[in-house]
């Protein structure tokens, strides 16, 4: 069901027919292409637009021009394969495995929290693979909030789980998440004992992490909670164990299966349900392809998840390399997250001297405080990234970042040198806008951008290497960043 169908199904039952305005609010056409591999054709060529689409969706932050060039040359199949060649694991902050001593040293904790943000943003910025996108995907799926968990080392421990799993075994990841100290604290698993059942983790495990609502009953939630009892956190906070005296060893009946189940058994039963594959496929589709659900495609993805025994990599490669993913209609059909927005700016502007802690702060203002989503459902994303409150802030940043600042300094000469013909104002405009924007512009828009670039200068006197030209280029970049097209993903 697509967005428009959802809207017409709105609860008043009123039909869209006869309702006003928009000349042709044509219902979304279902995308006919499925999971079959994308093969370039004359109608759907492998071009810079598609290479940029793949890079935007598969990595955190839009690419810079040279990366689009490189992916163009690789061709679609090899480009997808390249995304799954992960760099070596990042060097962790020095304090990563230091036992946590109580009482907490708050000053040190705040410092570590900031270092964690900086460390992760840098990692996302330099990693050319899909890995950090997957870390983000999982951290917005198996959600914990820094606000409650507080200790940076615990947040890092679950972040490492996501990186180790990345495109690996989802069932195994689900088991390990349930035993992770950050999650045990966040959803009160460490307080769930046979003497006092706490349903918090059991409910979210079913509702948000694996099956989705309406595939289980309240009794299933309670029975799962019993099976999950007994997990305790080590005194150092860096590990957890199942306490035999606090674990409920009675029979539990969960989704029709009866036995003396523990947490891992519960996960195995959950992953035996088709609903789980469909739910996870829906999450993957939503994140990587489109917030407008495509039921047939999600079912096909679920089949592949079951066939791969919940190994993500082959399924995700199929999806990103599919004719469906490369359909024209999907290019630019989502909204950039704040992280995508900012990392894109850094790459596109050839930023130097980046003030990473400040970047973390700006992300908060834009509605995406790293490691601190709003609630256990994570950031809803898509259109929810923008509001009349956050969009003006992005627009203001467009004004701010074009000048040298503590934020970063744009390497103007590298920016110019990557362009094939910066000495031609029309070509400069054309090249920058095709790199930065997922949608094509009409002649009038291009002409007005050229006019902003030139100011009062006649076109034949344009020389981008003259000192005063820098200001014109910056104004032009501000105008591009303030176009609605720049917010598309």
């Amino acid at each position: 069901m697509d967005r428009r169908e959802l809207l017409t199904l709105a609860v008043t039952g009123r039909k869209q027919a006869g309702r006003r305005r928009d000349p042709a609010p044509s219902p979304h056409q279902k995308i006919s292409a499925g999971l079959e591999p994308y093969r370039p054709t004359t109608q759907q060529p492998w071009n810079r637009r598609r290479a940029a689409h793949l890079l935007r969706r598969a990595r955190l932050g839009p690419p810079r021009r040279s990366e689009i060039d490189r992916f163009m040359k690789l061709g679609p199949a090899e480009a997808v394969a390249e995304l799954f060649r992960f760099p070596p694991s990042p060097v962790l902050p020095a304090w990563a495995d230091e036992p946590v001593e109580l009482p907490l040293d708050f000053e040190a904790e705040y410092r570590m929290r900031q270092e964690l943000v900086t460390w992760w943003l840098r990692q996302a910025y330099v990693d050319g693979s899909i890995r950090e996108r997957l870390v983000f995907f999982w951290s917005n799926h198996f959600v914990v909030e820094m606000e409650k968990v507080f200790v940076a080392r615990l947040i890092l421990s679950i972040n490492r789980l996501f990186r180790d799993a990345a495109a690996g075994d989802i069932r195994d990841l689900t088991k390990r998440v349930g035993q992770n100290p950050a999650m045990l604290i966040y959803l009160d698993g460490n307080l769930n004992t046979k003497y006092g059942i706490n349903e918090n983790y059991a409910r979210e495990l079913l509702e948000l992490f694996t099956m989705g609502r309406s595939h289980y009953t309240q009794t299933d939630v309670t029975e799962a909670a019993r099976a999950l009892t007994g997990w305790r956190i080590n005194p150092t906070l860096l590990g957890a164990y199942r306490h035999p005296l606090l674990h409920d060893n009675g029979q539990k009946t969960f989704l029709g299966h009866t036995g003396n189940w523990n947490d891992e058994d519960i996960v195995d039963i959950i992953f035996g349900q088709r609903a789980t594959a469909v739910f996870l496929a829906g999450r993957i589709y939503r994140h990587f392809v489109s917030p407008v659900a495509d039921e047939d495609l999600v079912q096909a993805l679920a089949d592949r998840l079951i066939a791969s025994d919940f190994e993500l990599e082959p399924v995700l490669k199929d999806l990103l390399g599919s004719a469906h993913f490369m359909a024209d209609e999907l290019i630019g059909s989502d909204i950039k997250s704040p992280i995508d927005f900012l990392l894109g700016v850094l790459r596109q502007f050839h930023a130097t001297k980046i003030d990473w802690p400040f970047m973390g702060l700006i992300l908060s203002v834009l509605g995406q405080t790293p490691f601190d989503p709003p609630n256990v459902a994570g950031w809803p994303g898509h259109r929810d990234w923008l509001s009349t409150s956050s969009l003006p802030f992005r627009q203001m940043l467009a004004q701010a970042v074009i000048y040298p600042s503590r934020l970063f300094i744009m390497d103007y000469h590298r920016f110019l040198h990557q362009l094939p013909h910066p000495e031609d104002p029309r070509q400069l405009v054309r090249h920058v806008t095709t790199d930065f924007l997922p949608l094509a512009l009409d002649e009038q828009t291009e002409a007005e951008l050229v006019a902003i670039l030139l100011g009062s200068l006649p076109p034949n006197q344009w020389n981008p290497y003259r000192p005063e030209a820098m200001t014109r280029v910056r104004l032009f970049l501000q105008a591009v960043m303030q176009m609605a097209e720049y917010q598309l993903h």
Partner: protein
Amino acid sequence: MKLDRRWFLKLSGMATLSGGCRPAWGSPPPAAAPSPVLVILEMLGGNDGLNTVIPYSEATYYDQRPTVAVAEDEVRPLDDRLGLHPGLVAWEPLWSGSEMAVVLGVGYPDPDLSHFRSTDIWRGGSTAPVIATGWLGRYLETLYPDYPDVRPEAPLAIEVKSADTLLLRGQNQGMGMAVNDPEALYQLTSGWLTVHQTPAPAGRAGDELVFVRSLAETSSVYAEKIYSAFTAAVNAVSYPATPLATELSMVARLIAGGLATPVYSVLLSGFDTHVEQSQVHPGLLRTVAGAVAAFLADLDALGIADQVVLMTMSEFGRRVRDNGSGTDHGTAAPLFLFGRNVRGGFCGAQPDLRDLDDAGNMIHVVDFRQVYASVLQQWFGATPALAAEILAGDFPPLPLFVTTGKKNSGAPTRMPPMRRQPTSRREPADGLELITRRHRVP
């Protein structure tokens, strides 16, 4: 330190710029518009209704809640059966002054214990399988079917937060604005460079493009209007130092400053008290009570008390039996309405603590849509037929509003369309300077 937007603006020096950037208003702001205003206060996470309005005379309450029960001598009695949590003591004068209605046992059939689904049900005003619109969004869309092509003189609704919610979503778009800082909004919408808009292509990307453009337009069209109302009034009382109270103080200023917006919403989260409820819940209730009491006093002092009603909501109550530390997700709970035009006292009935559903939860007495129907008909003046259309069914209204006083008669008030004036020229904010100035200061 919490790195929120306000903090950032302070840091970036923007908060200090108001003197220099104040718009020159041509004329004094109009007198406060007389149309009715509804303020929604959401208590997100599932407020424990049983520890909010406490059945302190019932032994079952104390039997079932060995850990979290509030001792009888701490309860602030409302009558000989029910009393307020001590954290709500600030509401006692509102209760005795008949400015507070307590609707007991509010819920809906087949209760859903998921935060997200139940929040959607409450915001949507519907229990349909798919909920894509909010009850206030649908109402406003009925009143202003041509929005946003024709924009009324003031925003239709303001959510004092950084993002829009389902509450105000209409079938075609969001009917409200997210505004958490009028001054910032005003600053941030200056100096945009605009160029010709390439027509949006058909299809999904085009839809997103139209969405972003409309959002940009809404922000810039209303920014000055909102800031003008905000600066035209000052609060007449002091509010507690909580974000919720600050948000309500902003709402009071906007209304008093003449903004004709009929709907506002604010929220406080943190009510998901699975653990250590006795440590957490009292503070949350104190925050709510203090903010609401100050807001009501301010409305009174500003002379706009007749115009405004505040209603609370929460996605569900909590389990009758506690879990040894806190309480798990439950069902029916009380909700509150405040204002001079509210009929003070109890409405509905306290659910029977010995007659629970299979999960050990209370059975609701009042359908939440009855409360919505009352608001739509008695406060906004909607016809019963329209209320039934908005709520997809006939939900008998409750006597929640007094019939005397300045009341609505029949037709809902509609704001006139906005007269498009040339946007006042504003110097572009120097973003670089704004961001970096204070950042250099350690």
